[in-house]
């Protein structure tokens, strides 16, 4: 019942055989050992598992790995370049946009997709853009500040 898939993750192409029921998030975590992408719920709600699929922010717990065949995936591990943190990662650090950090990879991947489409957002737009990412610690204030700061430093 295995399917051969070829998936490019953070620029590296992987070939693997997967059961159809394997979720993309399991493939990333358990097969590729990229554990930066988290699983926070069973109901497709929390967004901790967000990755980019061909550039579009996607809950990787709500897509089968076999559907990623031929696609390009970017995870939180793929954002830093040449040892330098991505401006979003830097801004989360500087603005204390995280406490326990569980939601952070998903929040950053959603923000990445959002800032690509809206490089100069208002606070309200940022809050709407992150409706699919739950944070149980920060109360969101510093997350919003961090996204704003990243937008400024990227423009």
């Amino acid at each position: 019942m295995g399917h051969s898939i070829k998936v490019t993750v953070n620029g590296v192409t992987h070939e693997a055989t997967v059961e159809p029921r394997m979720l993309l998030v399991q493939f990333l975590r358990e097969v590729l050992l990229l554990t930066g992408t988290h699983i926070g719920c069973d109901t497709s709600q929390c967004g901790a598992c967000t990755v980019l699929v061909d550039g579009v922010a996607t809950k990787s717990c709500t897509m089968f790995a076999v559907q990623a065949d031929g696609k390009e995936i970017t995870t939180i591990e793929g954002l830093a370049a040449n040892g330098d943190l991505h401006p979003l990662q830097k801004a989360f650090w500087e603005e204390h946009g995280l406490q326990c950090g569980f939601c952070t990879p998903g929040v950053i991947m959603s923000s990445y997709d959002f800032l690509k489409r809206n490089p100069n957002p208002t606070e309200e737009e940022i809050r709407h853009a992150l409706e699919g990412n739950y944070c149980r610690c920060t109360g969101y204030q510093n997350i919003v500040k961090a996204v704003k700061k990243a937008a400024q430093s990227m423009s």
Partner: protein
Amino acid sequence: MIPNNFEYIRANSVQEALQLLSQKGDGARLLAGGHSLIPAMKLRLNAPETVIDISGIQELASIRRDGDRLHIGALVTHRTVETSDEVKSSCPVLSEAAALIGDPLVRNRGTIGGSLAHCDPAADYPALTLCLGAEIEATGPSGSRTIAADDFFVGMFETALQSGEMITRVTFPVLGKGTGAAYEKFSHPASRFAVVGVAAMVTLDGGGNCNSVRVAITGAGPSVFRATKVEQALTG
């Protein structure tokens, strides 16, 4: 959580999807955006033997205006309806409503065809389709037929689709002069599904009287329904 095992097949055209549907019978399920089916499979509320992935069928992913009709392919995502200039100018209430579905990540993948076929009692598109008097195109082994929204929503998670049929497109009226529509939704704070959602379309005559009114309500019954008494009270 891990779904039951299943056979996975990718369909590259409507033709192929229909062949697979008839070959695999009632144990088969179509997979579009996956944002209703996969959560249900993870909770093992749904355990299809075969999953036919239609998400890559290009012919179902376009939006086209033809005179006073707006055709939206079954695989058009909520995000595309929300942001499409064509939808914003032809039927603005539709993009306003699409922007209220779930969250941005849900809207990136969920599709209009999937939402209507799933027929969740608290979903948004059923209210819009019913209020606007849209038509659903169902395609099966013997061709396509058009189902009026008034006949499409049969009950909780139940539609007029026959086994072996799939939704291929949804056709909305272009809202002309004198006609206005709005959608108001009270969202559940966690799931963002409608606790209640009300869609209304009003057409005025030259003297400012209500020529026709259609009101559809979601979230408040086993399936979307028209508030006919409200419509009667407002007409005239």
